[in-house]
């Protein structure tokens, strides 16, 4: 699994965990228990397909059902075709012989597809500014609350939140509740006020108070609404005016239940706001989040964080190998196949 300190580059030593080694393990166990639980349905869906097909022959039917399984995971027709074609040609050349070979190779290919360079978040700025954008209802505000909590708790950084969603009724109140839970300060503007000015005030306050990280929320918007997208460009510009190389990280939240439209979302948000990472949210349902693979493959945008539940701790750094393994794990109860087997050894 990937540690918080591996995702976030802070340029300083991670603080000694207050609860010591064992406590850390405890947390880890808690996380894996949760992830295992949360991904059970995922694995049942995809895993069941794979078990039924791939442990038999490597025939056309096996590939057809493999293709179906990937389509069901929302990986998308193009990315599915590229993976299936590659496996077919490897099977044709004799590199794959058994169903087990196919499973192993598929896992590798999925992980490889999910792996993109520049998958860290650089916080070596004072303050580092993170802008969070996305379509309505994808989980921006919730993710921000969780990130703030983790940054303070795991990395000992001070965080200031900016309530840049001045459009949706009660969005500011929602972020305020998260700020309280995370134990950090928040800058708010009036509902209906200019989001750019709230964000500007937030960054200014962040500089004045000397916080480590400023995280700015924005209103959810459909990527097709040009005037709202221009508003985001303006928000970016305002931040840049205050701190020339900021925002240092722009995260796009994508709902794991999203289908192929996720690719359009990523493309258009990237064009307007220079997105450099994805937060894949709501992975705790039956949705497989396969669209993240299509986004990684076609846009070279890495998933950096995954949301796996309602609790404040339910956010994790994304790990391509874990993602692929967990998706393909055959038996949900077989915890030894999970990447934390070292703990049990």
């Amino acid at each position: 699994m990937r540690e918080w300190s591996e995702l976030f580059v802070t340029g300083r030593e991670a603080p000694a965990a207050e609860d010591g080694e064992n406590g850390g393990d405890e947390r880890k166990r808690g996380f894996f228990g949760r992830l295992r639980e949360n991904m059970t349905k995922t694995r049942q869906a995809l895993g069941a397909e794979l078990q039924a097909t791939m442990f038999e022959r490597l025939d056309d039917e096996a590939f057809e059902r493999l293709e179906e399984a990937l389509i069901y995971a929302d990986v998308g027709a193009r990315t599915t075709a590229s993976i299936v074609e590659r496996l077919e040609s490897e099977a044709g050349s004799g590199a794959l012989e058994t169903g087990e070979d196919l499973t192993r190779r598929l896992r590798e290919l999925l992980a490889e597809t999910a792996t993109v360079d520049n998958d860290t978040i650089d916080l070596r700025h004072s303050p580092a500014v993170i802008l969070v954008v996305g379509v309505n209802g994808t989980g921006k505000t919730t993710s921000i609350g969780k990130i703030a909590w983790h940054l303070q708790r795991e990395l000992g950084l001070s965080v200031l939140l900016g309530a840049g969603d001045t459009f949706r009724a009660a969005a500011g109140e929602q972020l305020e509740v998260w700020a309280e839970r995370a134990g950090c300060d928040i800058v708010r503007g009036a509902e209906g006020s200019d989001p750019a000015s709230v964000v500007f005030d937030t960054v200014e306050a962040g500089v004045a108070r000397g916080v480590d990280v400023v995280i700015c929320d924005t209103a959810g918007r459909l990527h097709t609404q040009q005037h709202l997208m221009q508003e985001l460009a303006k928000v970016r510009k305002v931040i840049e005016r205050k701190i020339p190389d900021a925002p240092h990280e722009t995260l796009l939240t994508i709902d794991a239940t999203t289908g192929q439209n996720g690719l359009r979302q990523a493309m258009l948000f990237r064009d307007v706001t220079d997105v450099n990472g994805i937060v894949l949210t709501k992975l705790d349902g039956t949705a497989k989040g396969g669209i993240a693979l299509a986004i990684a493959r076609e846009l070279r945008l890495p998933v950096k964080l995954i949301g796996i539940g309602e609790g404040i701790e339910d956010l994790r750094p994304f790990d391509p190998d874990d993602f692929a393994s967990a998706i393909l794990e055959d038996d949900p109860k077989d915890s030894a196949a999970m990447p934390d087997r070292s703990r049990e050894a």
Partner: protein
Amino acid sequence: MFDTLSDRLQEALGDVRSRGKLTEDDVNKAMRQVRLALLEADVNFKVVKEFTAAVRARALGAEVLESLNPGQQVVKIVSDELTQLMGGSGRDLVFARGGPTVILMAGLQGSGKTTACGKLARHLREEKSLDVAVAACDLQRPAAVDQLVKVGSQAGAAVYEQGTSRSPVDVAEWALGQAKADRRDVLIIDTAGRLHVDEALMSELSEVKKRTKPHNVLLVVDAMTGQDAVNVAEAFAGATAFDGAVLSKLDGDARGGAALSVKALTGKPILYASTGEKLDAFERFHPDRMAQRILGMGDVMTLIEKAESKMDERQAAELERKIKKNQFTLDDFLDQLKQVRSMGPLQGLLKMIPGVGQQLGGLQVDDRELDRLQAIITSMTPEERANPKIIDGSRRRRIARGSGTSVQAVSQLVKQFAQMQKMMRQLAKGQMPDLQGLAGGR
């Protein structure tokens, strides 16, 4: 909305359409395209299989091969099957005889329930003159109650809320009592977003249903949902036996295959579509029209209805008279502009016109361009609006300053308007106007 899917099908059937006869190869090729387009539109895998099989079987039948224009036949078959898949004809909400009609809203987190509550409340008030109350039973998400209080009052609905300390089941029951006491026509119950795999929350939802006995349970489904839409719909059908769905965020460019999947696999119709940020961006879902739209035939019916509801007949007659007498002024133009804008974002309107959805492609129509035109005209004096010929250089500078635009923009508008008047004179005389000239003015 569904434009990309319609483009794909158009493309897939394009050469079949232009050819007289249809070979088995043609059908296979077209069906491959249809399959791919539907999969990319997030239509459920099983539904796609069944759909293409049904279309293929019918397309290969004698009725097509022997008909004079097989291409047209295939388009018709795809259209028929699609309409059928989407729900046949429209269905309406069920209303109680006496006592409040209870509508329970359910869905995943972020699907747009609270917004849909507000929009539905407004819709029922405006369209059916009903006295509507909404009940805040989403006690899970921070500030959800505040949001419903705001959205509900914007919609002109009474809001029943008891903060977040009681259980949602109790609040719902209490709200029903209130609605009865206040003699409301409709009570809309907002609930927390929940994952369909969360057993505790799903049984809580069943409990709310048991206690309030809603006449309608509506599932709010995000139009952008992928293959998972089916799992979600099936789980909610199990827990709440919902009666219909509201398709949200349909104003994006998602192809909305989820709508097809939900209907096809649960048999529950889509009742409403949510199509924009504003409270009035909410309409009845018309499966037949939507199928036409998917096939790139445009959605003329919706457009006409929108125009009818916004345009005043007398105004229209007056306008016609002015055009005939060549008295169309910039003031009239401004009125027209405002009327068109009251129908919603321009991009949405254009897509409803047959053929335009495809031609538009990636073109973005900027509503702010219209803001600028409005600003320029309102910066003119009444004389200038009645007789734009008097607008000279110094007037142009003043108008540009007043409207915050440039002299070039003002000149362009004046020039365009002159061309428009010329065009209208031609129209009034019964000639076909030269549209090229108008377009070239930009």
